[in-house]
């Protein structure tokens, strides 16, 4: 059987986590290739609909990344992202989408190493869960 490679979507904010992802690149830190990044200016811009849309179109995992608490370039956008994250996680459960496929992490502009670690672990984790189409979450 063909090895399963997950499809993972990572949202990055322009100032911290996207810069951290760039730093991972500049430092040539090797990361599993099964993810794609969408950049927004702030993690506060990420709408629940984007995440739902991703799962609807067959994405196996969604990772939201932003500035560390207190570090947000826009003061508090990351706090709003965090609130939405927890709310949305409950909603995913209701919708029958395995909430373990959805994650939030704080990554600063100086943490290329953390970006590598977080993404690699998430890719491995989602690989373990298998395809989201074939293995939907527990039905409510």
């Amino acid at each position, binding site marked *: 059987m063909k090895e399963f*490679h997950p*499809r993972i*979507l990572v949202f990055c904010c*322009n*100032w*911290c986590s*996207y*810069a951290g*992802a*760039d730093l*991972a*690149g*500049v430092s*040539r*830190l*090797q*990361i599993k*290739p*099964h993810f*794609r*990044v*969408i*950049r*927004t*200016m*702030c993690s*506060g*811009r*990420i*709408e*629940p*609909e*984007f995440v739902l*849309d*991703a799962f609807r*179109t*067959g*994405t196996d995992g969604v990772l939201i990344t932003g500035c560390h608490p*207190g*570090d*947000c*370039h*826009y*003061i*508090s*956008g990351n706090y*709003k992202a965090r609130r*939405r994250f927890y709310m949305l996680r409950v909603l995913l459960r209701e919708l029958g989408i395995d909430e373990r496929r959805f994650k939030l992490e704080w990554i*600063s*502009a*100086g943490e290329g190493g953390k970006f*590598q670690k977080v993404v690699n672990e998430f890719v491995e984790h989602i690989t373990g869960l298998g395809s989201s189409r074939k293995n939907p979450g527990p039905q409510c």
Partner: protein
Amino acid sequence: MVELLIDSKKVQMEPGKTLLQACQKLNIPIPTLCFHQALSPYGACRLCVVEVDKNGRRSIQASCMYPVESGLEVRTDTDELKNIRRLMIELIMARAPDSEKVRDVAARLGVTKTRFTSPNEGCILCGLCVRVCSERMGRSVLGFAKRGDQRKVAPPFDASSPVCMACGACFSVCPTAADLLKKTTDKVALPVLDEFDQGLRKRSAIYIPFPQAVPNLAIVDEKRCVHLATDQCQICTEFCEAGAIDFKQKEEIIDINVGAIILSCGFDEYDARGRSEYGYGRYANVVTSIEFERILSASGPYGGHIVRPSDHAEPRRIAFVQCVGSRDPHSGKSYCSSVCCTCSIKEAIIAKEHSRQPLDTTIFFIDIRTSGKGFETYYERARSEHGVRFVRAGISKISEAAETKNLIVCYESESGEIKQEEFDLVVLAVGLVPKDDTPAMAKRLRVLLNDHGFLKTSEFMPVDTVTDGVYTCGVASGPKDIPESVTQASAAAAKAMGLLASARKSLTSRRAIPAEVDTTAQESRIAVFVCHCGINIGGYVNVPEVIEYVRSLPDVIYAEHNLYTCSQDTQKRIVEVVREHKANRVVVASCTPRTHEALFRETIQEAGLNPYLFEMANIRDQCSWIHMNAPDDATAKAKDLVNMAVCKARLLRPLKRVEIPVIQKAVVIGGGIAGMTASLSLARQGFEVFLIEREPSLGGHLRHIFHTLEGRNVQNFVKSITEEVQRNERIRVFTGAVPGSIKGFVGNYETEVRTADGGSVKIEHGVVIVATGASEHVPDDYLFGKDKRVVTQKDFEKMIQDPGLRHMLEQARSVVMIQCVGSRDEAHQYCSRICCSQAVKNALRLYELAADINVYVFYRDVRTYGFSEDYYRKAREAGVIFIRYDDDRKPAIETRGDTLSVSLLEPILGEVIELNPDIVVLSAGIEANKDNGDLAKMLKVPLNSDGFFLEAHVKLRPVDFATEGIFVAGMAHSPKSIDETISQAEASAARAATIIAHDKYYAEAAVSYVDEDLCAGCGVCSKVCPYEAIEIVTENERRKSHVNEALCKGCGTCVSACPSGAMEQYGFTRRQIHAMVEALEHQF
């Protein structure tokens, strides 16, 4: 014009042109070996044969000789022609079986070997050399001699010709690369070597100096151009379709009236032949660090493949030899070049990363001097993660193994053993030396040089020469790395601006931006440019495959790939493409938008597009660089990323930037030397400054420093600069005060200053400079605080200087200094940079006071970089004993009765030695201020893992924060010396002035907006907005939100919060992001 048919395609040609030229016009490939665009056709090789149908008569003709005629019907690809060509190439091959070019052409015709036997003449009698010599060089040295099978190319009488000028044209056109010069002349032809590639490859007499040269134009090498010497040749003009080659250009001398001059003339590398025992210049595989840098480069002589010069084999063992022309009084270069340690570490790591096979790298060094910001952790990673081997040794000799051309490095290890090791390649870390013409220039400008031949500056005026109005920056005044050079560049600019403030903007003109094309009614027409970035992308991502894919995407009307999309010529190309193809959206797939988006936006603006009709796909930093081991996956990912960008680009709309008024005043936080220098600099440039100092008096740490390494009086300096600050009408000083809050954004800050008397003052200003300094580490080991004979360097300096305290030294006979206390350890993973020089300074000063004291310095690496090295040597000569220790074997200290006992494993003896000093001086490191975090939060700027402020870009933006309008200087950034602090302070002032020199600031375009039809006026958006940029207004009895674009910073939080979908963000609309998410549905 005549019209004819070639392979059933119509083509119009001017009369007199040949069939071959007509075929070339139609891009029909015709094999040739004797044809050259700049020479008359000759018809010797007969490979270019075509079938010509003229008035119903069919014949086979050499296309290079056959003139075009109306009504001809030509076929180029019949089986008969193929057979003829195959036969011809077999005949040719028989005469020159070794020629690469002949074999190449043969292979393309499907021929790999010849059935004919003939002596290997190494010449196919194509006559190119004969023609070029007579037609282009006007010499006719070469001609054909004899007939039939005796026919050959030769000079008259087969003798060396006095007419031959050894220009090498014959050789350069010869398809068999025959060394014709040997036949024609006794003169020695010198190859023209490419200077940028360090002579590792040849170049032409007309050439582009290097791939990203600005301007990216060819130049004619006056000394090597045959045309300029003899009026002949001009071959290049035949190839330049633009007709741009102008041999009449002359050097011009232009007079410009200026108010200030900045000398940034850089450096040369030390000529490694000066250390003949290393064999540079004799052994092919001994290269300099600069040569190796070119070898590593994608655009270098070997295309980025790491091979050695002698046999182009991939090395398995590389040795780096440090301090070649540095720290070496015998070669006249006694100073430390400062940058080579980090440079060699970088080269070793990159070599290991690029090498296709396991590669051993060894760095032979005296001391590793990685004292720059972040360099120590890089050094640690080189050791622990990359396995770079570091050997502390003196190299006595390098010799070459005759057969393998390998190199035997003979060295003395630290313990005194003589060892030998074999390497495939040796890299000499050559030092930085003043440029040859520096003395002449210095004389012309009446500036002085220092003892080492660099421009003379002083510790307190690091970018000033001795002549007013003449400033310097970079290595011209001494060895420096990139961030220091960039910092000094801004500092020199600040100095010049201070001088010329009254003339500001008197000669400026505005960039003319072409009128914007209205594209709103047009369908999307997207042009895509995919960058190879040398091999950075192209080496891992299959760029042509990406291009093929991109061309299949809807609305993409054009796609191409570039070696460097950011190069100046590609910028021109983008403008051309947009205009030619009427593109109204541009996508660039290259590096990160964080560094390059602005450049490309400006470019499409040149083409008449709104700058926001642009989108970038990051296929380097977030693709090729992080998936180096998975090229197929990287290619697939690159395709996805470009598709996502295209999907977003389709929905882009033109945007406008809002103008914001700027309050042309500055706040400087911190009144140490950095803050005071920055304030004075801004004041000199004509700006009002508010200087906030927490302590009751100005001066910072320098109040505890008495003299510099060079012996200058620091106290006097601090006193005079403090008075100058206090006297200056434009500077308002708040001592005993702290910023209570800082609100606002670039150009429009409001700071509440909590003053000493408990009150508060509100200040409005446009920029902030953070110059809050750092703290001395308080040691918690070595009996510090428990025994009063254990002191820090700062205390010790006071003891030496203060007559009231000097009695403590009177009884002292022996002093031990311990370096790296609170530096380079688990809790401080950085070098504090200044402690080695400080120890040397205080040791020397102590000797001046009491010559009979013994001073021992326990060190890990002595890091007296730059000209401080002279003082280190002086200290050794004066009798200071330097003993090294390893970080895992720190000196032990205890008290036995009244006696202090310090013991240490002496690495040369290999034995533990014990000393009983009267005073132990701890070189306590520099720590970031504990409360940096509070200020960082207030300003929304980041700190690094060591707690120092983190600049926008370590190399290129060393005093900026990513957040516009906020800058950093001095120890708040990282530990640094007085001159470096002053440079950085001046630099921060220059950078701040780039904003407050204008009365307007242009805000980002990606702000929020409201669809009033959808808005219910619920006010959620207003509540979540951190900038109070949204208010709820009532119009016609209906509540709705209103966005103040000047206040909106474009985070988009309100958009996600809006329950009715009425809020939107320009540049990141709901539809655009959905399009990117959905682009992935069928991908991966």
